[in-house]
């Protein structure tokens, strides 16, 4: 019996002529996600991807987890691949069911069969019925319950027979890389990693920019951002993280501009820097974790002033979400615990007591005239540190 992983594709199956482009990307992304876990072949067939270990060294359980994080997959199953004849199927089925009944103490079950290969001599209901009978005969403690069984035994008859009991939901979405690249403004908070995750889920490859204000913030805050990018990269594939020194810019703004405009000017410059970095890296849009009304710089007025700093599209996938919903995703994707570590990040050091909630572009631009924005931006970009996480 061979253990393999069966992954089911989601909406990319609905694609028309360029479906094979999506599928190829998906296969490539799965390959990247499991490469470090051992040797396996990844093949796609009829809306499914089969991951078959080539030897016993393959780390199967870790691979299950890694594959479940790849976007474009709606669910996965650990599956036994056996020869396509009823006797072999029943023999393996009894073995598998005995094992899970022992482990979980299940009492009831049903069998579900899909016969894709119509040359197989028995029809689906017949397979289910006969296989159910064999299982009942061999494991007397079980009974059949077709309405709410403790577990379902699945049989899929194709070139081979695939038998399994587990369907683990995955994240869906589209394979990363099928929708170009965008640049995520990554802080150390809860929101921005979630925003990046949501865009990656729609097939967008990620580039990330972090603004680093040492010594106003701790070196640990930088480590934290690197950790966050690393967690994201488990979903999105490799991420190039640009760590932009921001201290000089912040002190300059702090000295020359009105206190209640600090945050908004700072954010405009961040957007400009991110846009330049994007242009140098074939990235076509920006992604932020902004959510309507969450803080002073995220009112509709403030957002439009920030937005006016750049000409690229800015994606804000969290714009209509409540904090609770964002936290739920952050927990699910396992960035939350890292995000809540208490190190100061760049947004929390230079903050006015009462920042402007309804800034006007005209006023802000007038304040910015006091700064040599161009030189500041060029210097920061020149001193940027780039780390690739994969």
């Amino acid at each position: 019996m061979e253990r393999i992983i069966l992954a089911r594709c989601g909406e990319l199956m609905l694609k028309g002529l360029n479906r094979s482009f999506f599928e190829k990307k998906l296969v490539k992304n799965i390959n990247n996600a499991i490469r470090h876990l051992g040797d396996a072949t990844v093949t796609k067939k009829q809306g499914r991807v089969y991951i078959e270990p080539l030897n016993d060294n393959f780390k199967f359980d870790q691979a299950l987890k890694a594959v479940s994080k790849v976007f474009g997959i709606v669910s996965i199953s650990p599956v036994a691949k056996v020869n396509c004849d009823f006797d072999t199927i029943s023999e393996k089925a009894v073995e598998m069911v005995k094992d899970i009944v022992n482990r979980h103490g299940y009492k009831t079950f049903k069998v579900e069969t899909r016969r894709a290969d119509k040359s197989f001599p028995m029809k689906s209901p017949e397979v289910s019925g006969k296989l159910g009978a064999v299982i009942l005969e061999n494991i007397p403690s079980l009974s059949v319950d077709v309405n709410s069984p403790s577990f379902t035994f699945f049989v899929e008859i194709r070139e081979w027979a695939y038998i399994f009991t587990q369907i683990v939901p995955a994240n869906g979405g589209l394979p990363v890389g099928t929708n170009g690249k965008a640049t995520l403004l990554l802080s150390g908070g809860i929101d921005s990693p979630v925003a990046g995750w949501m865009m990656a889920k729609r097939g967008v490859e990620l580039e990330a920019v972090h603004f680093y204000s040492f010594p106003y913030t701790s070196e640990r805050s930088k480590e934290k951002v690197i950790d966050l990018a690393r967690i994201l990269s488990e979903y999105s594939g490799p991420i190039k993280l640009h760590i932009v020194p921001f201290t000089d810019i912040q002190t300059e703004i702090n000295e020359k501009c009105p206190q209640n405009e600090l945050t908004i000017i700072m954010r405009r410059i961040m957007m400009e820097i991110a846009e330049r970095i994007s242009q140098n890296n074939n990235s076509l849009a920006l992604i932020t974790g902004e959510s309507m009304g969450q803080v002073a710089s995220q009112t509709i007025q403030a957002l439009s002033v920030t937005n006016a700093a750049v000409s690229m599209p800015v994606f804000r996938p969290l714009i209509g979400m409540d904090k609770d919903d964002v936290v739920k995703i952050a927990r699910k994707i396992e960035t939350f615990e890292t995000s809540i570590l208490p190190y100061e990040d760049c947004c929390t050091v230079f903050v006015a007591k009462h920042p402007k909630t309804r800034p006007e572009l005209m006023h802000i631009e007038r304040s910015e005239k006091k700064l040599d924005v161009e030189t500041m931006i060029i210097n920061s970009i020149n001193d940027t540190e780039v780390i690739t996480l994969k």
Partner: protein
Amino acid sequence: MREKKIYFDNSATTRPYDKVIEDMVNVYASNYGNPSSLHTMGINSEKLIKEARRSIGNELGVKASEVYFTSGGTESNSLAVEGYINANLRKGNHLVTSKTEHPSVLEIFKYYENNGFTVDYINVDHKGMVDLEELDKKISDKTLMASIMMVNNETGTIQPIEKISRIVKKNNRDTVLHVDAVQAFGKIRTNPGISGIDMMSLSSHKIHGPKGTGALFVKKGFRLNPILIGGGQEASMRSGTENVPGISGFGIAAGICFQNIEDTWEKVSILKGKLKNGLLENLDCIEISPEHGSPYILNMAFEGVKAEVLLHHLAGENIFVSTGSACSSRKNIRSHVLSSMGTKNSYIDSAIRFSFSIFNELEEVNITLGAIKNIVPKIKTKR
């Protein structure tokens, strides 16, 4: 930038003596036997531990057999407090400690408070000194244990342990006195017999020894319930294979420290004085640590400056210090020590602790002074 680090965070941990490292490398490489083994290698390891025990016993003026090795200050405090309480539950249900103890003592007392014990946390004055009158009133015939630290880790306040012991024993001669001497050992000569201390916690890495090693002095005759139970090492007080290289290194560090104890005291006194006066003369700041505290610790507040921001700026110049309290804009936890002393919040939030060692030099103080003079005006909040 200067390559050389200036390390003024010696209350957090210290650089090990070269001799300690050499010794430990040797032990790791050649004397790796288990002290419990019956063969020669085991015996050789056992000898190393004996030597360290004798060395530390000598320095304290106590019997070697009254010294038990542990994994460090926290474990010593746990073993002393939990171990004694659990072994003597019938003798009383009242405990006394001070408000400025290290968390490794304070949190245990809070635990017992939540589990049916009555605990009195004695107040301190603005210098961090325990209120002796209050102590006198609180010790009763129900008092099982009192635990007071010798030197405070944030302020360097030195408690009058002899007086404290006399007060405790006068009110109840059966009340056991535990002293957390982690910041005092190797810096202030202490003889538990003379000072009337029943149990005393020590740590190795605060005196240029290795991390992961400490000791607890327990006066003969006191019964403790061990926390780690097993093979019966350390006279069944602390089971688990002994950290032979660590213990050996600890012994050597203690030896060197005590040999130079007066000279070092003098040296760090000068460094502290220079830094303090330099800061007071040139900057708008105040001293939080008491005038006559430990010369190893200087705590200064720079009102209007966020301590953590100053700390990172200094780190940017390879100067390493500590903040008076963990403070970030999201999680404002103020130091319980400074709060108990009645220090106002704007001082606590801007408090920096400089802590010295034999390895510090006057030149380092001057460089640090210069750096702080540069940084503070830049990062002071506009008002």
